[in-house]
């Protein structure tokens, strides 16, 4: 067995029944050198303090539940190695979200925004199974594939300065996913989505801080998606005065 290292974790605690505002608690534990931040939290929960609450499941960077703030940066804790930090590590909930308890944040705000971008294939007439699969070239697939990689981990929301201030802003992940469908050759709903994007503050309030793409653990590039979506939106908006559109897609 490899030798043990000692590290200090300063963890945000918040119990809505007892605490007016969040406070911190310090744990000093022995860790394995190849642990991730999440391993340390689970170790604390299992052996030191079972009252610590945090979300996690897959521990392989794909379910998106374990986003937290580590030494100030939004991180996917199951992928973030302990070895990249010093002896003291601060762990707090994701910024920009109301805090439910300890490291658990309120996600419903995102779920509402996500619903608004209509993240599904919209068509005027549903294709029948008997027609078989749609043809889509590898290039057409590549046009949106990257944006479909979002695991809804919310790191981008936590890093974006506009999210902090503009409640109507749909935010990086929701917009990237909306754009993903607009870019899909199988979809016919871009006019409907663009109208949603054009709503007050929904997309144009993004000031291209680019923080979202910097922190995204899955290289979704939401900042790029948003800028592309804005340009597409302007074109869609301009042509909407010339061409009348039926909005009978669903």
């Amino acid at each position: 067995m490899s030798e043990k290292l000692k590290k200090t974790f300063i963890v945000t605690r918040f119990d809505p029944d007892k605490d007016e505002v969040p406070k911190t608690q310090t744990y000093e534990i022995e860790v394995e050198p190849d642990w991730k931040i999440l391993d340390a939290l689970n170790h604390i929960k299992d052996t030191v303090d079972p009252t610590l609450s945090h979300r996690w499941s897959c521990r392989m960077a794909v379910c998106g539940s374990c986003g937290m703030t580590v030494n100030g940066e939004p991180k996917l804790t199951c992928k973030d190695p302990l070895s990249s930090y010093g002896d003291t590590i601060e762990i707090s909930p994701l910024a920009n979200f109301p805090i439910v308890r300890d490291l658990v944040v309120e996600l419903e705000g995102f779920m509402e925004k996500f619903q608004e971008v209509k993240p599904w294939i919209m068509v005027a007439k549903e294709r029948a199974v008997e027609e078989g699969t749609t043809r889509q070239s590898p290039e057409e697939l590549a046009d949106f594939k990257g944006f479909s990689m979002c695991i809804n981990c919310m790191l981008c929301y936590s890093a974006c300065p506009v999210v902090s201030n503009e409640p109507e802003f749909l935010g990086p992940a929701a917009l990237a996913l909306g754009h993903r469908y607009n870019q899909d050759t199988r979809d016919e709903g871009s006019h409907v989505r663009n109208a949603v994007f054009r709503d007050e503050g929904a997309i144009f309030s993004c000031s291209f801080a680019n923080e979202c793409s910097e922190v995204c653990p899955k290289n979704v590039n939401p900042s790029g998606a948003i800028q592309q979506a804005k340009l597409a939106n302007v074109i869609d908006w301009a042509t909407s005065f010339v061409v009348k559109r039926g909005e009978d897609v669903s």
Partner: protein
Amino acid sequence: MSELRPRVDAMKPRAPMPTRTADPRPPDKFPSRGRYPSYLAFGACGAFLLLSAQLLIRGVWALGDGEAAWDAYIVSFGHPVYLAYHVAAFIGLTWFALRLFRLFPATQPNRMGPMKRPADAVLVAGLYGVFFTVLAVGTLFLGGALL
């Protein structure tokens, strides 16, 4: 600007929350940490865009007013305040342009027309090339050394 708080309703759902929550926190140490200063400085360079474009307008306006007005316009730039501003503006605008061009590739779709998008590094190099060419050729031309 003591401590910037996000709006408490920033990511709050419209539906009522079933339990009491603590207010959202701002991104850690906004605006001084990590890449935030660079982003905010980029936004602040908007002031250079606005002011320098307005000074250019003043110049073209002076051209319309006649030779004396134009000469006075050029002479006015000899004032130390203008000189200081323009040194800052030149540095600011150049940095602004370079940051913009560095981020630019991400904003481009996967395909540009029939072409696949070149690698990001290639695009950035291209844009930097354009910037410095425009700067060099523009300077020589405007400065009278070309043509």
